[in-house]
């Protein structure tokens, strides 16, 4: 599974974003829409007060859903 994921990731880096069929798996097509809210309460590396999402304004954001396994 991990190798498959890595292969898809490498292919994506070479070819641009992977074809939706390769990674979509139920993920919503949100192109052109505002980034849906991030409502997690526990954060790391985001300062004592937690993540200030307003500070992302004017920045390019890469939002990744992941797991450590």
């Amino acid at each position, binding site marked *: 599974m991990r190798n498959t994921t890595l292969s898809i990731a490498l292919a994506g880096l070479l070819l641009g974003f992977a074809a939706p069929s390769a990674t979509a798996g139920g993920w919503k097509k949100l192109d052109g829409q505002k980034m849906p809210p991030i409502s997690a309460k526990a954060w790391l590396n985001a300062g004592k007060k937690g993540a200030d999402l307003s500070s992302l304004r004017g920045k*390019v954001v890469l939002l990744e859903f992941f797991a450590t396994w």
Partner: protein
Amino acid sequence: MNQVGHLEELNKKYYDKGLRIIAVSNESIGLLQAQVVEARGGKYWIASDPERATVAGYITPGRRGIPHAYLIDATGTVVSEGVPDSGRIEQLLEGVFDPALGRDLHKSLKAAVKSYEKGDYGKAHAAAARYLENEDRVISSDATFLQERCVACANFNKGLVEGGIKQKDFTTVYADLKMISKKFAGMEIAQWAAAKKKELDGSAEVATEMKAWKALKKARSKEAGAKGKAKKLGPARKAYKSIVKKYPGTRAAKMAEQALKSLPQ
């Protein structure tokens, strides 16, 4: 663990150019601290979301498939999804205002530079103005340069506001206008922001969009509360349908329609 390694690489490479990485996992904060921050030195934002409240906005309930990334431009708009691509990231970063001055300015401008680095561009612009006619050419040239950077930042933010208006994203537009009037006080753009706010305040279309957006936020909260359980999605479905019916043609109605399509039957 390979899937988290590339995030730190991207973070190191592009953070100073304006990329912000947010990694969301449904694992515990303790595990993420040990596995990503301590073991891999991950310095980007990491969110622990065991209740899957965030992911509900991005994936059809009941479906899984990680890793999966979304790339969002400077206006907060999703531009692509799937696997992060360096080329696309670089392309988007070209349009981002880089606040770095790139060189040291004359010590006379210390206070102005300090204000600039704090993001108080109006104060920096005013402080630099006092040195524009200085006899020392280095000082006057540096003062001009600093003012130009303030104006460039102002123009970038003006672009964000205009983009937001085009997208009918008025909640963000109002927040931007408030920020501009504070950070660029005394500059021409602050007057522009005040006039733009007045114009929007008087618009019936904007008022409707704002009401619809508020309703959409509530509907999304109901959807997140259902945690993907089809039987519990009734209130969210009803709320989305109400938005479509009550606020036709609005941005929120379009998003409510899309949300309805993605809810499991």
